[in-house]
């Protein structure tokens, strides 16, 4: 069926304008169909390839669905205990200050069990990059409520929706760390449309450029889907994310070159 529309005069190596980067290991990703984790992995690896940093970068993978990130990213990586990636990255960057170092963490990892490590690494102004995949849920363990779960959002541990009277309010970790003097670049992006993906890649590039100047933490939140946890199809989950996640977690830069760019009042309002 496909071959009917194959354009064999165009399908030549010299005409390739896009292909999967070699920095992603040639094996299937372990993620559910349509999961944003895969897209972020690819943008990260494309950026390192374009910057020529494959053998100068050390990544730290988390606990969560992306626990196996070291199996997919063809760079040096270490796996941290749940939530401790910023502590490990701190040690790596201090031992190897000329290396480019990043953490890759989910919201359960970065904003629940690892809250202390996140806040203190940001407050100390360590010189690495943090990539934070916020899907508002514990994807890996079966869709339990996370600190980032939206009010009234259903999860396996909030089957009637998150009741903020009992379960508290969602945590805007990104706005929070933006207030700390040790963060230099703080932004919130997404990867559900081509233009969103391009912006995320630009943000990743900026974060790694910042590492050259040892300016402090560059923190990139990517609001992402968890279609399995949310119990939707991938396309439905992307739409749900636009309608429900983005109003609460608005996309855009929050701090650029050490300067806050959004009004502070907005960051405490729920």
């Amino acid at each position: 069926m496909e071959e009917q529309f194959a354009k064999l005069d165009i399908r030549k190596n010299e005409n390739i304008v896009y292909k999967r980067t070699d920095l992603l290991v040639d094996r299937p990703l372990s993620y559910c169909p349509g999961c944003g984790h895969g897209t972020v992995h690819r943008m990260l690896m494309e950026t390192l390839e374009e910057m020529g940093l494959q053998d100068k970068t050390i990544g730290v993978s988390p606990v969560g669905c992306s626990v196996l990130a070291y199996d997919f990213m063809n760079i040096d990586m270490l796996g941290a205990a749940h939530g401790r990636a910023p502590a490990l990255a701190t040690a790596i960057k201090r031992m190897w200050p000329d290396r480019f170092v990043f953490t890759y963490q989910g919201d359960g990892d970065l904003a629940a069990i690892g809250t202390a490590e996140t806040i203190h690494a940001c407050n100390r102004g360590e010189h690495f990059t943090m990539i934070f995949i916020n899907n508002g849920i514990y994807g890996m363990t079966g869709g339990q409520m996370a600190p980032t779960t939206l009010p009234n959002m259903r999860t396996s541990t909030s089957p009637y929706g998150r009741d903020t009277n009992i379960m508290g309010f969602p945590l805007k970790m990104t706005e929070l760390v933006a207030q700390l003097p040790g963060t230099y670049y703080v932004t919130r992006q997404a990867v559900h449309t081509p233009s969103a993906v391009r912006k995320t890649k630009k943000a990743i590039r900026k974060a790694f450029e910042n590492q050259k100047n040892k300016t402090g933490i560059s923190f990139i939140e990517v609001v992402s889907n968890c279609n399995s946890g949310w119990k939707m199809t991938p396309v439905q989950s992307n739409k749900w994310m636009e309608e429900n996640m983005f109003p609460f977690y608005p996309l855009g830069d929050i701090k650029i070159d050490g300067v806050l760019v959004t009004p502070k009042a907005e960051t405490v309002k729920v």
Partner: protein
Amino acid sequence: MAKIKGDIVINVERCKGCEVCIASCPFSTIAMTKEVNGKGYHYAVKVNDDCTGCMNCAIVCPDGVITVYRAKVMAE
């Protein structure tokens, strides 16, 4: 007159049938098969000749399974 033409190749055995690429194509060039691949997923295929090689589908594909080609061709 020269015209920009594109083509895509989908690694169907790695496609997970998420359909995210379909929504991103401005020319409705991609659709899903009725058949399934070795993993049991319906997979994406090219269904028309209108591709311009804009790369949208490849950039947004979570599994990175789409290769995009683009070239100037003489219009018939």
